[in-house]
């Protein structure tokens, strides 16, 4: 899932400027699961804003709405009435949701309420780790299901660097060395020999280097739209 965390209240208050009618808009998918921007966090931010604005003599009206997913236009329609008449929308979705809201509801000003951090797992209560970097050409099949692109600080694809010590990374000693993890996993799987195979150079064409990416699937489009 996409992992995010709430921006400091003071920063969000700074976005309000002269807006009077403010909507705090949540997203019920990834950011709800990582407890950054779901319905409950919307209630919390709205409550904080109501209290903080009173102490700062700001005259604002704060309302709340949550779409199941801000990255799907069908779901944005479910909150269009809540957006109507607002001067400002504080979107608590990831960066995708914020942009999608801004596009759909222009000219209403849309600002982010959270920082979008990474794609990761919730590995313990209140703990998240980055697991994927959207490189567009997955190598997990040959690395025992551990991503070297993401989990190696240097994204090395052919074994650890010289800074790997006691299974930890030299960049951050709290981080496990991804190549140590890969080695241990492959050993457990009895597939160590696979690591010795020479692999062709990874293609980065499908990664970010070629600018923003797009995916187009004709098989999903109704025939009449294709004509």
């Amino acid at each position, binding site marked *: 899932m996409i992992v995010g965390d709430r921006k400091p209240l003071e920063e969000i208050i700074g976005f309000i400027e002269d807006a009077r009618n403010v909507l705090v808009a949540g997203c019920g998918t990834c950011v709800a699961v990582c407890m950054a921007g779901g319905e409950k966090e919307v*209630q*919390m931010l709205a409550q904080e804003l109501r*209290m903080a604005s009173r*102490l700062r003599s700001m005259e604002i009206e704060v309302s709340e709405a949550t779409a199941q997913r801000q990255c799907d236009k069908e779901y944005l329609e479910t909150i269009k009435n809540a957006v109507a008449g607002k001067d400002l929308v504080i979107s608590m979705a990831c960066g995708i949701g914020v942009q999608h809201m801004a596009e759909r509801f222009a000219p209403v000003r849309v600002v982010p309420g959270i920082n979008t951090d990474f794609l990761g797992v919730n590995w313990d209560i209140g703990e998240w780790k980055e697991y994927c970097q959207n490189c567009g050409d997955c190598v997990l099949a040959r690395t025992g299901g551990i991503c070297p692109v993401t989990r190696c600080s240097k994204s090395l694809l052919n074994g650890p660097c010289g800074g790997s010590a006691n299974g930890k990374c030299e960049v951050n000693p709290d981080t496990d060395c991804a190549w140590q993890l890969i080695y241990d996993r492959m050993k457990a799987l009895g597939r160590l020999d696979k690591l010795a195979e020479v692999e062709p150079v990874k293609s980065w064409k499908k990664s970010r280097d070629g600018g923003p990416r797009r995916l187009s699937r004709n098989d999903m489009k109704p025939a009449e739209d294709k004509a």
Partner: protein
Amino acid sequence: MNDVKTDDYEPKVIAFACEFCSYTAADLAGSMRLRYPANVRIIKVPCTGRTDAIMLLKAFEAGADAVFVSGCQPGDCHFLKGNYRAKAMVPGVKKMLEEIGLHPDRVEFFHVAASEAQKWVEVVTQMNDRARRLGPNPLRTGGKPEYGPAAQKKEQEQSDKQGAAAGA
């Protein structure tokens, strides 16, 4: 609620009390004829794990001067971990209060078992004293931020103004 004069200030303290322990302790304090500040309003909850940051914030918005959550002793929760959840939540609320501009001492978590009537009295007295020391919640007096970055900013602005006036 909105025009409170500071000189006849009587704190409003809200207690979220677990029905299995702290609420029973309050009951016992009554049976034992113990005296404690009468300005505490007790809200009985089925477990402190049921309380939520929003509930505490709403209490402050409605004009509470201090709010506390009182749950079972460690290991005694009827729902195993409800008291731990509430205890973990309260520091988060303190941080939120700071950001909003209220003093974080206005909220606290305590463990008070059903048999600890005397401790209940101490806890209520402590929160009442804190509320008295901190003064009324600025949200009900129409005041300004009293704590945190917003209050510091205000102070800085004022001293800058004074400095500029002295310079001129």
